[in-house]
């Protein structure tokens, strides 16, 4: 059983964001052939967000508060060399509902030196939107004002849009030598349905219009990672690289480097750095370009995720694990686990006019994001 609380902050002057994220997980093998996983987490979010992309952030920023919850249940059926997983989950917030079903299998091959895993997940999501009709002219699309009447079938102000997501993940983990572990794999995803932020407007010329995105997005991520055991100093180095491509023309590369070191067993420290660089989506423009030149085709966005950017993360984590030796703690606990970590996030816009990019207000401080996490748990 594990419990964690994560605090996330983006200390932007006008669009600050604060999130408290408690998580709880429980996992138990009831027999040699059957196990159960249960998880629950929440996001308690507050902050301010610009309503209109393309104008002064200060004047268009509005405050918001929301609570997101998510619960999941998984079953594991195990044999000596393979595990079958099936599960499902349900999550929601005031303007979004998400149901998931998933299945996967992991197999140990070749004297257990190779582990093959395949997972599939389907999301049945629903998004609250303003009640724009299907025949609405694109430049007449209105943004959602409030989540207050969301998912109310009788409300004339809102409508519910569908969003279906199919994800497949394949991974191969290979024991290469007694001190080197390798893993490579891929994730493919197809997203179909309403994908815009229903509240966001983009200034096209002098008219503010609800964000409009393609209904289909196909995504592919391929990755490889290696972990080296540093025998004399009881540490490990991890290196990972991911390439990403999607049908909206975003290409990105992510690299991650981590170093684990035992200070004095069982106390360990982990340092990590992560860098991500990506291009813009085909239809992305900076705010000043949308305002002066209009959109590219029939799509427009103010989403920072779809802009060219360079994000970096630098963090440290301390972990302590106390394992029972001769006798269990309290007669049933095999180990206690405690950890704490801090990450600093830095954003850099790589668009033509960074001062008119979605992240500009968030890049004015000493750091652009901050994560602190405390975790405790026990094994029994």
């Amino acid at each position, binding site marked *: 059983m594990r419990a964690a609380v994560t605090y996330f902050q983006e200390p932007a002057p006008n669009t600050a964001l604060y999130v408290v994220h408690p998580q709880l997980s429980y996992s138990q093998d009831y027999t040699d052939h059957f196990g159960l996983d249960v998880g629950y987490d929440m996001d308690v979010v507050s902050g301010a967000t610009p309503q209109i992309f393309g104008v002064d952030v200060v004047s268009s920023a509005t405050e918001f508060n929301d609570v997101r919850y998510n619960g999941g249940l998984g079953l594991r059926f195990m044999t000596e060399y393979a595990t079958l997983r099936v599960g499902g989950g349900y999550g929601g917030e005031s303007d979004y509902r998400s149901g998931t079903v998933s299945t996967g299998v992991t197999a140990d091959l070749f004297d257990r030196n190779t582990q093959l895993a395949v997972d599939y997940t389907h999301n049945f999501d629903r998004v609250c939107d303003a009640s724009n009709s299907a025949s609405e002219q694109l430049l007449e699309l209105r943004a959602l004002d409030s989540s207050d009447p969301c998912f109310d079938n009788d409300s004339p102000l809102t409508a519910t849009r569908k969003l279906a997501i199919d994800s497949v993940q394949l991974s191969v983990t290979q024991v290469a030598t*007694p001190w080197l572990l*390798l893993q490579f*794999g891929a994730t493919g995803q197809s997203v179909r349905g309403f994908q815009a932020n229903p509240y966001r407007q983009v200034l096209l010329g002098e008219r503010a219009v609800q964000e409009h995105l393609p209904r289909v997005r196909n995504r592919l991520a391929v990755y490889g990672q290696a972990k080296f055991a540093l025998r004399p100093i009881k540490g490990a180095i991890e290196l990972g690289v991911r390439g990403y491509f999607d049908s909206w023309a975003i290409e990105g590369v992510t690299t991650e480097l981590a170093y684990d070191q035992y200070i004095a067993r069982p106390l360990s420290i982990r340092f990590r750095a992560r860098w991500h660089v990506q291009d813009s989506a085909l239809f992305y423009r900076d705010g000043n370009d949308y305002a002066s030149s209009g959109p590219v085709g029939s799509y427009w966005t103010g989403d920072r995720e779809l802009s060219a950017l360079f994000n970096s993360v630098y963090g440290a984590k301390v972990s302590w694990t106390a394992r029972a030796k001769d006798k269990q703690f309290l007669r049933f606990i095999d180990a206690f686990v405690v950890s704490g970590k801090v990450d600093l996030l830095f954003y850099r816009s790589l668009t033509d006019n960074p001062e008119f990019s979605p992240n500009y207000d968030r890049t004015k401080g000493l750091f652009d994001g901050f994560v602190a996490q405390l975790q405790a748990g026990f094994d029994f």
Partner: protein
Amino acid sequence: MDSHSRSDAKLLAAMLLLAPLASGCARAVLPSEKAYLADPIMQFDSDALEASSDAHVMQNREGAAGGTGTAGGGCGCN
């Protein structure tokens, strides 16, 4: 991102992605040789809650998603 740096990044990614294939030439590692690999710090994504919250944070800030790896595999002796 200019085309030159993008090509370099793709080449680096391809080299690292192909590296595991080269391991197929190596001899099998015996169970008695997996002491270092069995150590908790040799697990990929050994902290599921941390991996989940990290993915949640980054997916809301980047266009990319997926390809974050699979947990476990450390000792290959599950």
